[in-house]
């Protein structure tokens, strides 16, 4: 069940990246690691999937944040027939991040600090690294 805290934490995740997040896979695996390894209390249910841990609730929430204008989705053409979806906070999203930082910072200062710190660390990892780590720390494997 998605709660207000999940939305706040997702906004803080994108805010902590402080730049675009490249690819939907990246979002799925980063949030999975934050949930299972770093114990950030996301409610998104992750399932075992062909490509490793995957949460349809998280994917739908991202769609809703795009639809409501808090996230912008940019389609990058990587080759003639492959596109990648990048995401970043819009101006309205950044405004919400600032508000979330204040509110969450007052209520759960350690949680906010940890989320921001861990997210920045994850940002430095490559995609194969986060894919592998997400499988390891969630115990959710994949076929490939």
């Amino acid at each position: 069940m998605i709660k207000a805290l999940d939305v706040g934490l997702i906004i803080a995740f994108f805010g902590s990246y402080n730049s675009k997040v490249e690819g939907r896979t990246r979002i799925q695996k980063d949030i999975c690691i934050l949930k299972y390894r770093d114990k950030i209390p996301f409610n998104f249910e992750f399932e075992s999937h062909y490509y490793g841990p995957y949460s349809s609730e998280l994917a739908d929430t991202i769609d809703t944040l795009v639809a409501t204008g808090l996230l912008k989705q940019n389609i990058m053409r990587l080759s003639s027939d492959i596109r990648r979806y990048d995401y970043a906070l819009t101006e309205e999203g950044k405004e919400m991040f600032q508000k979330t930082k204040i509110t969450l910072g007052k209520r759960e200062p350690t949680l906010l600090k940890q989320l921001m710190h861990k997210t920045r660390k994850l940002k430095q990892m490559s995609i194969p690294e986060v894919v592998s780590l997400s499988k390891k720390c969630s115990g959710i494997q994949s076929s490939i």
Partner: protein
Amino acid sequence: MSQSYNLPDPIQGTIELPLWLITIKDEPVIRRMMFIRQLGLKAYMDFPGAIHTRYSHALGTMHLAGRMSEMLSKKMMNKGKHVIAKNLDDNKNNIMAAGFLHDIAHAPFSHAADFVLKKIIGKSHEELCEDIINLKIPSDIENWGITKSSVIQLIGPKTHSHPFLSQIINGPLDSDKLDYLLRDAYHVGFRYSFDLDNFLRQYMVLGEEEDLKHCILGLDSTKQAVVTAELFVVIWKSMYDLVYLVEHSRIAEKMLEKAFLLRKEDSVIKEMFQIDKFVEGNDESMLSQLKKMGPDVTQLLAAENPKRLYSTKLEIELNKKNFKMTTAFLAELEEDPDELSEQLSLRLAQELKQERYTLICDIVKSKAPRKIYLDNSNTNESEVELSMRSDIVSALTARNLLKVYVAPAALKKIDCTNMSEVLKKLVEEEKGID
């Protein structure tokens, strides 16, 4: 030897009834589907041709599910994936039974009563489906190698141990969608043409057969598969825009929902949603029951008299430019838009000093298509899904509209110019973490 039946069908051609179906087809819980229109109130409001029923869709889904299992089994066998092929063969009857029974718990007027069902008995129609299969489908069906627990698992929504099997019934490329899109289009009068045989030939099971629990239903990665899937997604999108979310029907459905909610504490209504009565109910019986419940309820039955139909007085996109949404509002928008619409309806009527349900708020969510995965075994990409390969599919994004419908009698009494300001206040009041 038992008699077998072949039935003509406008969408699937000839449907051969399997022997296990012949043993249960005359049960009242099955025949009830013949008296529930597939498109509910849409047949009364916008599409008089749409008089097809849940029953014909159930047969079509069963038939397609069987064909998909067979075609996939042959294809996987040719690829040397014998374990996957055997799994499909062994489960064919279960898959077909799941296709036939997947909508068994739909209330009369279909989706219009889904929210009511949840409010009155606290169950979704998927949860009720499990109860009906366990309690009302004769156990004789299990003499044909079908197990009720497998059928329930295949219908979902819980994850099946072998997802590629349940995705034949409930997934981005499922037999349910393929049948209802083509069947509904045909009956509303849209001549959409789609080469089903060609599409099914592009299906495959992705993943390694040593690891069946991670295998999923997907498509070949050929140009032909991508273009055919694009056509499927375009038909899906146009059916949502032109049929499933079409305005008059949508308003009539929301009005019907409120008619139930007005009497949700009434013992007759409560009983109607208890399993024994529920499996006897159909469109006609439900409507005639509601008509007896007083003028406030009757006023909400637009199918009876379209002059009662509410008018759309506000339509505004739910985004940050129009509303300062809180995290709580956004979470509720994602989790339960029907409940959020209900709360907004009640509070807006209160703010504007109107009777309950004189105004109806409705959040209309148009979703992006679900992810359709393509075979990536011949590429360097770790994950390939249709929207990464298609400009058409990547252009389809989710959108949320907030609409307010107003009763004819209240139109002159309500200051509609003030409405959006009041709604803004209500949306921004939702207590979030911010």
